[in-house]
């Protein structure tokens, strides 16, 4: 009986192992926490100390954004794009509910300041961004450097997936009618890789909202 019993145990163990092997190699699932690290792309020749390429834009096409008001990007729940999406000049992906991802290592955003009060002027205005940062294990940080023309104005290093950060517009006198065109350099942008194998976009930051604070 003992031998029979041991044999039964052995058969069961083999069955369990075979089942385990089957489950292990069966089709990948989209459920559960996303385990894979993004594929790290070479940073390229450009570094954060070198200015990103100047964006091409038509000043007249830039939207006017009210100082102090938060504007949204992406689409609403019906899929209708928000009106300020066209402030995103270049280096941005398609609008999605929740925001718009940067595409590649450079992106530009531009708008014209609208300020009701004649007294509203500032030399140290803050531009508040909010949205999502693409950070995964193995790629835990996204650095964003902000440039106006050839001048680096500020930077942010972000590690939390949901971010709200400010960019200082140093040396820029901001008042009603001032055009602001900001080039963002995103050296840590990556393709998602195994985490989302069907998406080949090189992403870093998904902008959901923007607010200018004078």
């Amino acid at each position, binding site marked *: *009986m*003992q*031998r*029979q*019993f*041991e*044999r*039964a*145990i*052995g*058969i*069961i*163990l*083999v*069955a*369990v*192992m075979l*089942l385990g092997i089957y*489950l*292990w190699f069966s089709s*990948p*699932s989209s*459920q*559960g*926490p996303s*385990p*894979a*690290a993004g594929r790290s792309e070479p940073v390229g020749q450009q570094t954060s100390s070198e200015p990103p390429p100047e964006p091409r834009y038509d000043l007249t096409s830039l939207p006017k954004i009210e100082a102090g008001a938060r504007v949204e990007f992406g689409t609403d729940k019906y899929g209708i794009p928000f009106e300020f999406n066209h402030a995103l000049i270049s280096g941005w992906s398609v609008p999605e509910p929740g925001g718009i991802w940067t595409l590649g290592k450079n992106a530009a955003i531009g708008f014209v300041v609208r300020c009701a009060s004649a007294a509203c002027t500032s030399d*140290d205005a*803050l531009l508040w961004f909010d949205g999502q940062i693409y*950070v*995964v*294990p*193995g*790629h*835990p*940080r996204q*650095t964003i450097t902000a440039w106006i023309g050839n001048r680096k104005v*500020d*930077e*942010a*290093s*972000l*590690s*939390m*997936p949901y*971010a*709200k*950060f*400010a960019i*200082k517009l140093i040396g820029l006198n901001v008042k009603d009618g001032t055009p602001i065109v900001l080039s963002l350099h995103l050296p840590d942008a990556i393709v998602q890789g195994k985490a989302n194998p069907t998406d080949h976009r090189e992403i870093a930051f998904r902008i959901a909202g923007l607010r200018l*604070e004078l």
Partner: protein
Amino acid sequence: MTACDLECGGRPLARGPEGRRMTEVALRERNVAGSFAIYVGPMRRCTHVAVAICLAAGYALLLAWFNRVDFYHHGFFAHGRAVRQYEFARVIFIPYFAWTIYSVGAFANWISFGRETIDELPSWERYPLFFVAGAGLWHVVMFTIGLAGFDIKPVAVALSLGTMSLSVPHLAGCVRRLGDTMSRARIAFAVRRWQASLLWVAIATTSTIFLLVKGLYPGGGHDYYNHYFQFYRRVIQTGSILPNDVWYHFYYSKGAGLYFLGMLLTDPLAPQLVTTCFMACGASVVYALLRRSTRSPSLSLTGVVLYIGAFIYTPGPHENMQNGGWGILQKVHELTAVLLLAVVWAAYHLFRDKTTALGPWTLALHAAIVSIALLTLPLTLLAGVYLTGFVVWFAFRRKWRVAARPFAAGVTAAICLFSMAAINYHYTGIPSDQGVVQFWPFLDLTKVAGWGTMLEVIMAHQGATGRQPTAPLMSWDTVVVFASYLRLEIWWPILVAAAPFTILQLRSKTTRAGMHERFDTLAWSALGWFAVTVILVALFGGGRSQAISFYRLSTFSYAPTLCLSLLLYNVGLVRESRTPSSMRLRNLLLTLLFATVLGGIAILNLPVIRTVRDNLAPILSNAKGLATGRFSLFDAYQNEQGWPGTWSFGAIYPGIIEPWRIVGPNTRLWSFHIWSYCMLPACDIQEYESERLSPSWQTVLFGSPEAGIKALKAEGLNYFFFSAELQVRNDPLPISHIFSPDEIAKHLAVRWTDGTSYLLTWPNDDTQPIDRKFLEAYAAAMRENTMMTGAFDLKKISDYLKLHQHDLRPFDLPWCTNCQSMPPIDWHS
């Protein structure tokens, strides 16, 4: 007495031609179809002594290597061969360390009970039993040394090497026995042994994976990074386990003497190596318990496979998964779990009418209880309740002689409990921080004030007062949570799959009698009563109000419930006298039934299985990365893919790296956040409320800025870390003028920033003034800081404490529910 006389309880073999003849005869008798033997010959006389001396010398060399290379501090960012060497050295250290624990237990037993008593025990019981006894003795010695302030490297090396040297004769005996066994070894292939071989392969595989994933790969989770590890480090820094600034861990971790010993001998990554030794002991206990109660080596080996295998990935139920899971080898919970398993195991052997080797079992039981009291004081209560049940049962049956055994163990538990509470009270004025509300009327606040933790104790009192049960007692949620305390969320498939076997055996009188024959009442009662005790303690302890912590702590149910599940499986298979062909058919049917049930469970739980699989893949890949040197220790800490409740940056927040470089090793760095982990070498990051803010907290928070700054500088607190992207939960510093959002720019300056994280210090030539961007982010973070809203109460409490500082007694805290008879604070003054 020669070294050869002190062998591991085995009988010497006949040597020379006679020995060879005997071995050949024995092999011929045991030979079966398909097997062949290779005769090697017995080990030459006293070769074993030389081997033992070489092994002991190897240990000395290993310790010397750790001391000379100090890889943790000097190679933290290194890759490649250096990492492989380091990991190899750590692997080698594990059996050596286990041996030093075991040999102390063996020596104590040999002295106390003599060799004959020891020889009554089979080796598979003797090794874990002596390990448990040795662990108890080591813990007591290390605790005494720690209190005396001698947790220092020379003492640790002397103790460990001394033990190793003294154990050489015993080691020589074990080597000889091993050599003789090997000399009789045969390379055999027998059809009937393939199951056992398969199980051994499974044990080897799971053990290797376990070692790579849990034993060697650094980790530990949120609590470990914030306070457990910081306390361990502080003990190693100061050489003392006396109360320090990682304040409440004095109540939790001061008894972890073997961790400190391991850290002193190797480096700060030692705790997981020490726990790996204990896990090996736990696996041996599972084997021994199952083998004794089922008499089935296969089922016992299956138990070992499951014990090790299911511990590789331990996320727990969803709620616990979000909080980091359980089964963390860097914490003392796992040591206590093995020791509680040893208590159950010893109870199974001791609490019966007829028992052998009474002395060794009693010593192990008492040693385990003492260790539990030193490691996790509240669990002494669990052990006490467990033992009380046996006392009551045997007293009820008027078996006074047997009842005396659990009674004596219960007395040991009670003595340990009161001794530890007295030690806590003597050093801190509080018997246990867990009972701060209940003990408040009796606290010695002068001692608390002297320790400098009055602020933290008062806030802990407030937190504990508001603690409520998470679910009503009579609810399905409570049932599920309590089932998880027994780890049924892991083992229920075995129980469910075994149920049809058992039900099948109820069909006739004969099968029922057979089942009864296999039913080991003593094992069932030892394990079953333990499960009931766990539920009782969960009900009346913290099981309802601190569900997450209690779940993590209840890792002690893991092995007993596994054993209980396999015992159920065992009684389902009844010995019957039938023809071989009918037995084959029956076994096939039973196996099919079991496989069908297990398959059904697996299919119903496919999402869970897939999640486990998806998470295990990166865990295994990372473990391999470290073992092969592709990862440095830094990479390993930052890559925690697959583990529950972790951030993408793992244990090292990217924004903290540069501040760590700037402030230098072992320099206080106060963080406003609990997620700015800094598991870098010698990083002395501190945050509220894991670490004491300041003994001069009243001056800092409510005094003038000049006085507050002077106090902080005097305590060596000159650096402060803030990140605009991390939440500030309950830091009291911003209550002060110095750190208030309105005034911080006047008193502090930015030493470094990356645009998101800031290192602040007092203004000097290397700093920049605080700008508007920082101030806005800081003010926004402080609006979420819960401590800001309670500032008024705290000021009044501070004033009361100042007024009564020369005669400080417990007083009526505003939220207190048991302070009615105490002097109140005049809130309107």
